[in-house]
């Protein structure tokens, strides 16, 4: 598989010309060539990751030559496994600490922001939305470096590098996800339900709490999963804003180890991150389906699950 998969992208333009006649000749027929490309691409995109997961169970020190199965790098090795190595274990807890704190700040803040700009309208609301979207497309290295300069100069005496700075940076970077998802859901709900509640005597706050928030439930849940998963995977921001080794999460450890001499414990660390993100997304997906019935076709779902 490997040499075929490696050459795949380069091979596409050439082969597409040779099969052009059959595909264009009957666009409603079965395009075998496209099928091969698509499944080949999927194999190419996922096999390296599966191999990396498998190597976390390697018995030897190598991450490229298989030496038998063992749980050595997960917990058995007395010094260097993911669980027994103090640095790696600390990094694992730091990853979860940062992700949970980020969810707790970013999701309420972003949900309120989205409700505000959806109902407020007007130019200031549009400008706020534009600013938020701007933070969404800004390359992360720019945000990371500028926050590092902010925390080491202007806010030097208020924010220390480390967990605080990392959470502040992550929230800034993740804030746009709940805003986009909740806003998409708000657009599909419309104001009628709250108006009905208020016709029946509810105050604005009651209408918001008892009618709108429950209806936003699926979108908020999706935001939680998305922000959590993206914070676990975050690397650029948390690296620049980490203080010393104890505040480096798993992603930074993987980066540093990959540049020196990694053991399969690094593969185990990466696998833990993968399990964390995929289970967050899977749990959210199951609940989302249950809460929103089978009408899951609204924009919030497609944004969350990738079609942005």
């Amino acid at each position: 598989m490997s040499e075929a998969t490696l050459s795949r992208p380069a091979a596409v333009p050439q082969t597409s010309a040779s099969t052009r006649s059959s595909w264009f000749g009957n666009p409603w027929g079965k395009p075998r060539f496209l099928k091969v490309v698509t499944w080949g691409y999927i194999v190419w995109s996922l096999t390296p990751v599966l191999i990396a997961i498998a190597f976390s169970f390697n018995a030897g020190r190598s991450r490229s030559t298989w030496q038998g199965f063992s749980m050595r790098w997960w917990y058995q090795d007395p010094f260097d496994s993911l669980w027994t190595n103090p640095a790696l274990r600390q990094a694992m807890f730091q990853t979860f600490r940062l992700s949970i704190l980020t969810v707790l700040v970013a999701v309420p803040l972003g949900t309120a922001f989205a409700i505000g700009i959806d109902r407020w309208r007007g130019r200031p609301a549009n400008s706020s939305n534009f600013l938020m979207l701007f933070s969404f497309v800004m390359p992360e290295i720019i945000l990371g470096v500028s926050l590092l300069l902010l925390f080491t100069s202007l806010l030097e005496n208020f924010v220390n590098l480390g967990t605080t700075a990392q959470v502040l940076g992550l929230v800034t970077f993740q804030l746009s996800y709940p805003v986009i998802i909740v806003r998409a859901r708000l657009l599909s709900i419309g104001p009628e339900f709250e108006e009905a509640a208020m016709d029946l005597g509810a105050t604005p706050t009651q209408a918001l709490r008892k009618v709108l928030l429950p209806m936003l439930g699926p979108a908020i849940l999706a935001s939680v999963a998305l922000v959590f998963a993206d914070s676990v995977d975050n690397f650029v921001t948390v690296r620049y804003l980490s203080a010393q080794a104890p505040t480096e999460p798993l992603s930074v450890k993987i980066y540093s180890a990959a540049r020196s001499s990694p053991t399969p414990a690094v593969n185990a660390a990466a696998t833990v991150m993968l399990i964390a993100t995929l289970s967050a997304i899977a749990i959210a997906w199951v609940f989302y389906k249950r809460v929103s019935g089978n009408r899951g076709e609204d924009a919030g779902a497609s944004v969350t699950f990738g079609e942005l």
Partner: protein
Amino acid sequence: MASETVETPKEPPPRAAASGGRRGAWYPRWYWPSFTIPGLIWLVVFFVLPFYVVLSVAFGTVDPLFRLPIPVYQPWWWSFDTFTDTVGRFYEGNRIYLDPLLRTLVYVAVASFICLVLGYAVAYYTARHAGKWRGLVLILLISPLWISYLMRVYAWQSLLQPDGYINDALGIFGIAPITWLAGNPVTVILGLVYGYIPFMILPLFGFLDRIPQSVLEAGRDLGASPYRTFRRITLPMSKPGILAGLVIMSLPMFGDYYTNDLLGTERTSMYGNLVDLAVGTAGQGPEAGALVLILIGLVLVPMLYYLRATRRASEGAA
């Protein structure tokens, strides 16, 4: 800056009238703005203010003793020496600066082209022909987004080791082991393609999926050849997806330094490596600031284009 944004609501909101104006009667004037203000203040403090600090650092000086950057917050005392020095290095024949920039442009262009061709084929198949497998294919296409980028590059780094599986596989065909990781541009470009292609496929899929079958059938019924149907209907209707994908995929590539750190050497270093190096070196704070400013200048136009396009799309949908 915060006070300015808080004051502006005094202007009459133009869209409120269009939506019937009923809502204005229900809620106190400050009610909805009060939801937005906390997030807005957050963005002003942690998103807008940092850029001012970048300007102040880039146009500031360095403490001669401790090598720490001393930002200058008053624009009238800004010194542009470091900035002009840094810009100057890009065309004064200093290859250490110019090469990474040129390399970045070439790598991003080549990687984007490969992503577009491969991604279009995959998205086209998934949107039009995947049939009963569609749900599964979509999940498999999205799943790389939920796998840490570093893990995915690390996985390739392991496979491309001198004794890795790729060279093992080549050995079966009698091909001598290739040194993939010793500053080979092919490796870095393939790493970029591998890392960022999901961002290309998903917008493409979104737009291709929205083309109604009836439009294509109409084109065929009116006598267009299959090729012409593709060129005149499918391609133009998926153009927003192509542009969105190209922008959303290439923006992070311009700031990428970790792909090269894991798969290349300084012979394949990119613009992101310049920034990262300056950030990590004592006394180069102003230079890091200047490099970030140049990067902002590079990506500003595609960024604004993308924002304008998505705003137009969301207004069209609403």
